[in-house]
C-alpha cells in the first residue's frame, strides 16, 4: 500500500533542496501531503477488502463485535452452500466472455479500419448498454424474452436468456478495450504483412490480433468480472435451478447474517485476483517472450 508513496516522496524530495532553505519546509509539507493523500486513497480501496477478510474469520453465528474468537470454519462451508451457484456464475461468465469476444473483437477491428460518421455512430451504439441502469435493462430484456417465448415455442428465460443478457452488458467493455488497444496500432505493420504476401485473414491473425493481445486479455477479464458480479440480470432471468452467485448471496442474506457471506466474498476476490495475476503474467510473458 505504501509502494506508490515512496517514488512520489522521493521526487518531491529532490525538488526541495534546490528551491532553497525558505521553501525547504514547503517541499517537506508537499511530500507529507502527497503521502497522506496516497495513504487515504489506499485506505479507501483497501479497508473494505481487509474488513471483509477480517469478518470472514469471526467465530460467531451472528456478526457481532468484538467476536468471541476467530475461525477458518466458514471457508469449508462455502462449497456446500454456494457451490452450485458459484459453478453457474462461472459457467455463465465463461460463456459470456467467449461470446462477447467473438462479437466484440471483430467489431473493434471493423470500427477501427473503417472510420466514418457511421462507424462512430455504431461505436456509440455498441457502448449504449453500459449507460443503461442494469435493473431497467434486465426488466426490458425479461419482457422482451417473454414476448418471444409467447410468439415461439422456444424457452429463453433461464440460462439461455442469462447468457444473452450478459453478452449484452459485457460486449461494450470488449469493444471499448479492444478499440483502445488499437488506438496506437501501426497500420503500416499490417500493410507490411500484406506486401510480404499475407492474405487479409492472415494479416489479422498474424499481425492485428497479436497487437491487440493485451487489450483482448483485459477485455476478457473485465467481461468476466462484469458478468460474474452482475445481480440485476439474474434477478429477472434466473429460472428455478439456475441461481447465480450474487442471487444466492442475496437470498442467503434474507435469512442469515453470518460471516459465511464474507467468506464467499473473499473467495470470489481470490478467484478473480488470481485470474488477474495469471493473466497479467501471461500477457507480459507474451510481450517479452516469443
Amino acid at each position, binding site marked *: 500500500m505504501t509502494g506508490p508513496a515512496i517514488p512520489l516522496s522521493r521526487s518531491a524530495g529532490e525538488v526541495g533542496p534546490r528551491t532553497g532553505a525558505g521553501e525547504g519546509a514547503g517541499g517537506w509539507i508537499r511530500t507529507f501531503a502527497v503521502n497522506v493523500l496516497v495513504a487515504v486513497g489506499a485506505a479507501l480501496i483497501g479497508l473494505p477488502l481487509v474488513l471483509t477478510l477480517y469478518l470472514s474469520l469471526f467465530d460467531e453465528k451472528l456478526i457481532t463485535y468484538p467476536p468471541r474468537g476467530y475461525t477458518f470454519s466458514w471457508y469449508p462451508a462455502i462449497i456446500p452452500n454456494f457451490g452450485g451457484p458459484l459453478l453457474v456464475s462461472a459457467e455463465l461468465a465463461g460463456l459470456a466472455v467467449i461470446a462477447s469476444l467473438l462479437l466484440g473483437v471483430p467489431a473493434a477491428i471493423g470500427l477501427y479500419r473503417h472510420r466514418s460518421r457511421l462507424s462512430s455512430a455504431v461505436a456509440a451504439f455498441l457502448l449504449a448498454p453500459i449507460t443503461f441502469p442494469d435493473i431497467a435493462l434486465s426488466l426490458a430484456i425479461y419482457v422482451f424474452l417473454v414476448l418471444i417465448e409467447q410468439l415461439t415455442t422456444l424457452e429463453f428465460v433461464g440460462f439461455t436468456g442469462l447468457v444473452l443478457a450478459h453478452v449484452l452488458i459485457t460486449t461494450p467493455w470488449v469493444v471499448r478495450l479492444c478499440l483502445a488497444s488499437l488506438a496506437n496500432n*501501426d497500420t*503500416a*505493420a499490417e*500493410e*507490411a*504483412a*500484406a*506486401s*510480404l*504476401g*499475407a*492474405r*487479409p485473414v*492472415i*494479416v489479422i491473425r*498474424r*499481425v492485428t490480433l*497479436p*497487437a491487440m*493481445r493485451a487489450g483482448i486479455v483485459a477485455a476478457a477479464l473485465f467481461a468476466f468480472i462484469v458478468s460474474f458480479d452482475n445481480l440485476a440480470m439474474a434477478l429477472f432471468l434466473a429460472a428455478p435451478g439456475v441461481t447465480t452467485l450474487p442471487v444466492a448471496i442475496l437470498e442467503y442474506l434474507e435469512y442469515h447474517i453470518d460471516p459465511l457471506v464474507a467468506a464467499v466474498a473473499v473467495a470470489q476476490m481470490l478467484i478473480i485476483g488470481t485470474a488477474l495475476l495469471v493473466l497479467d503474467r501471461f500477457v507480459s510473458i*507474451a*510481450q*517479452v517472450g*516469443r
Partner: protein
Amino acid sequence: MSEAASLVLDQVSRRFGDHAAVAGMSLTILPGELVVLLGPSGCGKTTTLRMIAGFLQPTEGDIRLDGRSILPLPAHRREMGIVFQSYALFPHLSVARNVAFGLEMRRMPKPDIAAQTSAMLRLVKLQDLTERLPRELSGGQQQRVALARALAIHPRLLLLDEPLSNLDAGLRAEMAREIRLLQRDRGITTVMVTHDQAEAMALADRLVVMRDGRVQQSGRQEDLYERPANPFVASFIGGSNVLSGRLDVDRLVLAGGAAIALAGRYAAGDRRAARLPESEAEAGAARLRVHHQSAGRDAGLVGQERTACVIRRGPRRGRRCRCLLPPRSWL
C-alpha cells in the same frame, strides 16, 4: 534470382474527392534503376508509392510491371518489398521471425526459411541479434531488419518510403550508402520517396521532382541541377538563391538601384561568374531574381520584371559566385 523488372506508370491519377493527389503521372523506370520521387509533403509522392504497392487503386491510368498491368493484383500478390518510414516491424516477433515472415507466407520449407533468413541477416550485419525484439533495437538496426525483411522475399520491386527520415544525421549517410550498395548488388528496381533533396541526390540514379500531384521534372542529378525546368525545381534542388530585378542591357538592376553585371551571352544552363555588387540594397536579400541578359535582349524583355538566374551558394557582397542561367522557357 529473377531478372530486374521494369515499371511503367501510364497517366496515373488518384483523386480523393475533388482533390487530385496525383494527376496524370507518367514515368518509366528501367530494370535495376533506383528512382527517387522527390517533393514537398503533399506533392503526391507517397500516394504514388502506395498505388504501386497496391494499398491504393488509381482512379485513372495503368501501372505495368514488365509490361503487364498489376492493377488487378491485390497488395499481397504484387511481390513488392516495402520499407516504411516507421519500419513497421512486427513488434511481437523476433528479428529472425520478422525477416522470415514473407518466406513463411510463401510456404517455403522450414530449413530453407532458416537458411534464407540468416543469409539476409548477415547481409545487413544483424546476425548476432536474431532473437531480439524490434523494440530492443536502435533505429538504425530496425531499419536494417525492415530492409532485410523486404529483400528476403526477392521482391520484383523495392519500395522505400522515407527510409532515412527517422535516423540521426550520422547514421543517415551510412544507411544511404548501405541501401545503395544492396540495391546495386542485387540489381533490384527501386522506387524511393523522400522530401530530403540531399538524400535524393546521394541515392538516386534518376530523380523525379513532384509538386501538387504532377511531375515537374525527371532526370539525373546534373540535369536537374544545371537545367532546372522551372523555378520550383531550381529552388527545391540544392541550396540556391533566386535573384530578381529589372533587366538592363548588360546588368540586372536590383530594387534599390544596385546592379549585378552579367557577363556575355550564354546558353541556358551555362555557368558563369557574376559579380554581386556591394550595396545596402541587396545585402539582406536572400531571394533575388536576375534576368537572363541575352534572353532579355533577344526577346526584348529589357526593363521587365522576370525570373532569370539562380545563384548557387549564398551570395556574398563583393564576392564572385557561380551564376546559373535557367533555360529560356522560364522567360
